[in-house]
Structures are given as structure tokens and as C-alpha cells.
């Protein structure tokens, strides 16, 4: 079970990384295309879809690597049982909001699918396809939140807590937090 879940998070994260490279390749192709005299404007649109897919598919893996920022002013000072209560509260609130968001995103994808919505670019794309990236990413994120909530309820340390503060040692050019 643990292994399957970890594979889910990491696989989704790798897919997000793939889409990031895809955005770069598309943008480079666009430059080359323009130099050769092709003005293909659909590239913008496809790069935008890649961006959305990368951002949302990466949510869960980023979360487990403790890269999503939070205000630790209060929670960082709490110890023992109080700390755990804080973590559980945060995870419950986050799971409810992400669950709500995920549900409505899925219903948006379903509507696009039923109405057969297409994009307005030169090359029409069925909108439910790129939109699914959002819904999938949110689903994996919801699973990751519930996963850590169960861990915290059983008295364990949530995944993101065992990583430590990223960037504090300057090990990677992480953004300010």
C-alpha cells in the first residue's frame, strides 16, 4: 500500500517534470518555426496547457517534499500534542478545500466532455483533455492529504515534516518562504 501510494505521488511528479520540459521544447520549436517563417500561434496554447498540467500534477509530490509554503509562526512553536492537533487541523481544512475544488474541477471536465467543448485556437483541441490534468493532479493531492491526515491521527510524523525546511541550507535555489 505504502509503495503503491509513493509510486502514485512520484509518478505524478515525474509527469509534471515531463510537462515542464515539454513547455521548454514547445517554446524553442516556436522560435525555430518563426525563424523559418511559420507563424504557428497554437504553440502558445499548447504551452499554456503544459504549464497547467505541470503545475497541478506536481502538487502532491511538491507537498510531500515540504515545498508548499505555510506560515509557521504559530505552528512552529507548538510542541507535542498541541503540535499534532495543529497539524491535524491544517490537514483537515486542506483536505476539505481541495476535495471541494477537486469535485468542481471534475464536474467542469465532465461538462466540457459532454458539451464537446473545443478551444478557440487555430488547432481546435477538445478541452476536457488538457483540463483532466487539473482534475487528476487535484485527486492525487487529495489522496496525499488524506494519507498524511491518517498518519498524523495515528501519531506519526507527516511526510512533509520529515523532510526539513528546504532551501534553508542553500542546498537548492528554492524560493523565499
Amino acid at each position, binding site marked *: 500500500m505504502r509503495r503503491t501510494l509513493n509510486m502514485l505521488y512520484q509518478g505524478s511528479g515525474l509527469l509534471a517534470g515531463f510537462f515542464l520540459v515539454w513547455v521548454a521544447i514547445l*517554446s524553442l520549436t516556436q522560435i525555430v518555426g518563426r525563424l523559418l517563417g511559420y507563424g504557428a500561434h497554437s504553440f502558445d496554447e499548447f504551452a499554456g496547457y503544459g504549464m497547467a498540467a505541470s503545475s497541478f500534477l506536481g502538487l502532491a509530490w*511538491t507537498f510531500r517534499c515540504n515545498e508548499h509554503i505555510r506560515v509557521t509562526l504559530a505552528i512552529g512553536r507548538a510542541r507535542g500534542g498541541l503540535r499534532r492537533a*495543529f497539524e491535524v487541523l491544517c490537514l483537515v481544512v486542506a483536505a476539505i478545500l481541495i476535495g471541494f475544488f477537486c469535485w468542481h474541477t471534475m464536474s467542469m471536465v465532465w461538462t466540457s466532455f459532454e458539451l464537446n467543448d473545443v478551444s478557440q485556437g487555430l488547432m481546435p483541441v477538445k478541452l476536457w483533455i488538457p483540463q483532466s490534468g487539473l482534475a487528476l493532479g487535484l485527486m492525487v493531492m487529495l489522496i496525499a492529504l488524506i494519507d498524511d491526515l491518517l498518519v498524523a491521527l495515528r501519531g506519526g510524523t507527516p511526510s512533509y515534516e520529515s523532510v526539513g525546511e528546504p532551501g534553508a541550507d542553500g542546498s537548492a535555489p528554492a524560493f523565499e518562504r
Partner: protein
Amino acid sequence: MELWTVSLVLLAVLIAFMLSGVWIAIALLGVAWVAMSAFTESPAGPLMATTIWGSSASWSLTPLPLFIWMGEILFRTRVSEDMFRGLAPWVEPLPGRLMHTNVVGCGIFAAISGSSAATAATIGRITIPELKRRGYDEQMAIGSLAGAGTLGLLIPPSIILIVYGVAADVSIARLFVAGVLPGVLLIVLFSGYIALWALFNRDRTPRRERVTSLAEKIHAARFLIPTVLLIAGVIGSIYTGIATPTEAAALGVLGALIVSFAGGSLSWANFSASVMGAMKTSCMIAFILAGAAFLTVAMGFTGIPRAMAAWIGEQGFQAWQLIAVLTVLFMILGCFLDGISMVVLTASVVLPSVKAAGIDLLWFGIYIVLVVEMAQITPPVGFNLFVLQGLTGKDIFTVAKAALPFFVLLIVAVLIVWIFPEIVSYLPGKMFKG
């Protein structure tokens, strides 16, 4: 319910969400959801999904992951190791000598990483021990590093300017170009202060080690020069209108890969680590921007930003009064919040008021970055202070005291930019209109 009661309730909800430690992006979603469901008739859920889809699948966001990726690749080359050795012969003739490696090194690294904490950490890890060993004043070394580290926020390609551009709907290309001169101004202020200090404290600056020829200088900087040229090329291509910010960023990634390959540091492990590192940082920021996009729409539905702007218009506030109030507000916010959250919250709530007061949004973008820079070196929650605390082993108040003159210089910079707004607007005005 009166609009001001609604505002107070929402402010309380925001503070509660933030302080509880809920991840910031999710907290923004939460506040927006409360605002929509409690104070408007519109359905929150469908609007949440469509707004966030619209803002996330956006071409204007694409420079963000690419510039972060470029930085991640360059970060894994020899650039940071060679920074001190490469710069030392160039700055040694100046009064203050090797102390300037902090400022110039941070200036160059800032262009690579776009993060002030990573800038201070990477440069400081090498310069602090080197300066100490040579007998430089420790307090000055720490202070100049803390101050110069914040250059990472302003010098393009700046991640926080992309965030502002997306949130406030201002051209990222113009913001980048607008940031160049204020960045130079800061470098001049910081280096000028070091030089003046050195002239008045001659006994506390070690002598010059040796005179180097130009050829030696170039040889020492041989690993730095390609990176500096790459950054200049990226900014230049945006300025001349040859490339959009996304294309410039993609070229930057390609160039970084070539620099890394030529320097022998491009391996599969390094490559995949750079992709995954960039993905995580960009995902974190994009998630906050997604939350902020929904918050902006939700706030629009409540009518608070519009009412606030109208009120400010009626009171006949001068622009400088608004800026003075905002500066104090940001200083306080900066004690609790990081730079990106401050920028997106401003964009969701305060921007209509800023427009109503007749302030140029391009100028405001540069201003807000300068203020966020100040917040980085103010206790109790200045992230640069934490980094320097870790590097030097001094307590946070010693570090903050050392950084104080540079904090004052940042205020001076804001004043200069206020009095001479041309520093911001000159280059964008000259830009190629694409």
C-alpha cells in the same frame, strides 16, 4: 451587511487561515470560498474551477518554470564556486576591496536564481570564510551580504516580478526591463556605502594582496563570463523585442544547458535534479497564483476593492500618502508573510486603490519588490537573516544589526525611485514595441 463589516470579517478569516499554518495557496482558496458563499449569491464551486483553469492554462505563466529551470541548471555548474576567485581581482582596486565580491557576486547570482535567500546562502558560504580569513570586518561582511542578497528579487529575470506581472496583469517584458536600472541603483548604493565606510575605516580593511594584469583577471573569471553573457543575452533579447519572455526563458534554458555541458557538469543526475527542482518551485508558486486568481475574482464579487478605491478617491489622498501607508503595512506583513503571498494579496485587494490614486502599475511593481526586499532583512521573520544566522552562527539580532545600514539604503532607494520615477520608466519607454 455593511461593506466594512464584511471586510473586517474576511480579514479575520484570512488571519485565522494563515496563522493556523494551512498552506498559503489553500488558505487563499479558503478565504475566497468564504467570501463567495457567505457574502454573494454566486455559486463558489463552478467559478473556482473555471477561474483557476483559465488562469493556470495561461501563456503568460510559462516564463515562470523556464526561468526557474535555467537557474537550477546554472546553479549546478561551477558558477557559484568560481564567483569569489573570479571577481576578487576585478574589485580589489576599489576602496573596500574584496568586500565588494558580496555585492557584485550577489548581483550576478541574483540573475541566476531569482531568490534572495539562495543568493545570500550560495555567495555567503564562500565569501564569509574567505573574508574572515583575510581579516575583513565581520559585521560589514555579514551586513553587505544580507543587503546584497536581496538583489535576487529585483535583478531580472526575477521570479517575483513574474508573479506580480501575472497577478496584476502587467507586461512581464516591461517589468523585467524596468527592473534593470533600479537594480543597478541598488548595486551602486551598496558598493558606494562599502567604499565610503572603507575610506573612513582604513585600519579595518586589509591591504591589497597583489596587482593583477587584465589577462589574469579574465583568466580568473573564465567560468563566470559565459554565465554573465547568457543573462545579458536573455535580458537583451526581451529588451530589443526579439523574443517574448517565454522564448527568452527557453533560450536561457538552452544556453544554460550548453554552459553546463561545456563546463563538464551536465550529467543525467544533474539534469533530472534540475527539472524536478524547478518543477517543485514552479508548482508551489503556480498553486499560490491559482489561489490568488480565485481570491481576486471573489473579492471582485464582494465589491470591497472597488469600494476601497472609491473611498480613497473621495478622501483625496495624495499618491505619496498611500505609498507611505502601504510601506508601513508591508513592513508589518513582511514579519509574517513571504514575498509572493504579499504580492498576490496586494494584487487581489489593493490594486484598484493604487490605480485610483494615479500610480503607474509598472512603477508599483518595482516599488513592491523593493519593499519585499526590506522585509527580507527585518526581524523577526526575515528569511535572509535566518540564512545568515545559519552561515555565521551569530544570533538573529546581531545579524539584523549588521544588516541595518543596508536596510536604510533600501529605504533611500525607494525614496530615489519615488522622486525620479524615470529610473523605472526610462528603459521600458525605449523598448521595442512588439
